[in-house]
C-alpha cells in the first residue's frame, strides 16, 4: 500500500493517525461516546475510498483529505471503525 509523506516537509513521519491512510475494520458495537458518520456525510473522495477498500481495510486516500479520524465509526454496508 502507498506510503504517505508529510505534505509539509516531504519527510516521512511516525504519527500514524496523521500521515498514514486510515484503516477500517468492521465492528458490531458502537459505544455512546464515539463520533459516527453516515456514508452520505462523507466527501466523494472518502466515499470512493470506502467503496473500493481492499481486504486489508486500508483506505486509498490522503489522510489529510478526509474528515475521518481514529476511533470514528462509519455506517456503510456494515459498521466500520477507523483505526
Amino acid at each position, binding site marked *: 500500500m502507498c506510503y504517505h509523506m508529510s505534505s509539509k516537509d516531504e519527510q516521512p513521519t511516525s504519527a500514524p493517525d496523521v500521515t498514514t491512510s486510515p484503516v477500517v475494520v468492521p465492528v458490531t458495537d*458502537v*459505544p*455512546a*461516546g*464515539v*463520533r*459516527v458518520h*453516515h*456514508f*452520505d*456525510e462523507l466527501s*466523494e*473522495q472518502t*466515499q*470512493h475510498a470506502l*467503496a*473500493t477498500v481492499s481486504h486489508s481495510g486500508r483506505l486509498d486516500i490522503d489522510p489529510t483529505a478526509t474528515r475521518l479520524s481514529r476511533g470514528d*465509526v462509519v*455506517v*456503510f*454496508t*456494515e*459498521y466500520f471503525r477507523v483505526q
Partner: protein
Amino acid sequence: MSQSYVIVGDGIAGASAAETLREEEPDADITIITDEGEPLYNRILIKEFAKGKLPEAPISIHDESWYDDRDVDLVLNTLVTDIDPDAHTLTAHDGTEYEYDKLLLAIGGTPTQLPVENSDAEGIHHFWTFQDARDIKEHIEQADNSVVIGAGLLGIDLAAITAAQGVEGKYLMRGKAWWRYALSQDGAEIIHNALRERNVEPVFDSGVDHFEMDDDGVVTAAIDPNGDRYPADFVGIAIGLNFNTEILGGTDIEYDTGIYVDEYMRTNHDDIFAAGDITEFHDVILGERAQNGAWGSAKEQGTIAAKNMVDYGSAEFRWVSSYSITHFDFPFLSFGHPTLGDESVEAKYSDTEWRRLAIKDGKIVGGVLIGDLSPQTKYKKLMREQVDVSGQLDTLVKQDFQLEDLEGAAAEQ
C-alpha cells in the same frame, strides 16, 4: 449597526447556514427558531437508532453549548406561524414577534398522511424526526408483525428497521417494483431479494384501502385494495413529505410544492432566502427547477444561502446530490435526479450488481448504482460538467467503465 439574521429551522440546512453566517459576520445577531424540542441531530442516522444498532448519543450533532459558543440564539419548541415580509417580522405560535434584516426559511417538511380509514390508529407510525425514531424503536421492539407502506427511499428505512428488529413484515407497494420511477424490474429485484432474506415480504400491486383496529383504537391489520388482509401490530408509513409552506400564506413569497429560489437560494424577496428540503431551486445543471432532500444537498444549500445573505451573488448552488442505502450487505447509491430524463441505459452484472443512468438531452442527469459504487465519481463528473454522451450510452455502462473509453468531445473530460 450589526445585521440581524433569523433562521427558521434547525436541521442541517439551518445549522450550516448559522455556522457560515457566524464565520462571515462575526458581529451579526443570529437567531435560530425551531419547533422541535432539541438542537440539531443527525437525521440520516436516526434509522440506525431505530434499528437498535446505535445508541442515542452519537445521533446528536449539536448540544446547546454549540450555539452559546457561537453567540447564536437558539429558540426551541417554537412554531413560526406568520411572516410579514414588508415589516421584516415573524410571529410565533405564542405571539412573540421577531424582527430580521435577512431571513432564511429552512422549514423542511412533514410526513404525508395516508388518507384512508383508521390511519390515525395507535400503532401507525410516520418516520421523520428523532422523536419518531424513538417511538418506532420502543414499539417495534414489542411488535409481532408489521406492515410497511411507501415504496421509496424513506419506506425502505422502515422496512429495514422491522427487519433489523427481527419482526416479520409485509411491504405493500402499489406497483410491481420498489422505487419503480428510478429502478427497472431487474434493479428492483435485487432489493426485493434482500428484503425477503430479512423476512420482509414485498407485496406488489397492493397498498392500503383501510386499517382495522381493536376497541382500544390500536391497529390490528391493513386491508389492501384487493381485499387482502395483512395482520400487523406495527405499521410504518412513508409516502412522502408535505413541505411546510403553510406559513407562506398571506405573503407573496413564490412557492409551489416548495419555495422558489434562484441558484443563490434567494426567494422573490431580496431579504428572504430558503434552503434544504423546502426549496424548489434553480438547478443550474439540470436547467430547470428541482427539489432534493439529501443531507449533503441541504447542508450545501444552507452554506450557499448564508454566503448570499451576506453578499448576494457571491456563491452559486451547483451540486450533484447523492443518497445511499446502507441496510444491506451490498451498497446502493442514487445520485442526481434518477427519476427524470428522456431516456436511460442500464446493465446488470450479477445478482447484486446493477446500474442505471438517466439521460436528458444527451447528458447524464442521475443514476442508481447497486453493488459497485466505484463509478460514482466518473458519472458525477460527467453530470456536473454536462458532457454530451449521446451515442455512447452502452459504453457508459461497461462494467469497468473509464472516462477514457468515451469518444469525441466527451473524451476530453
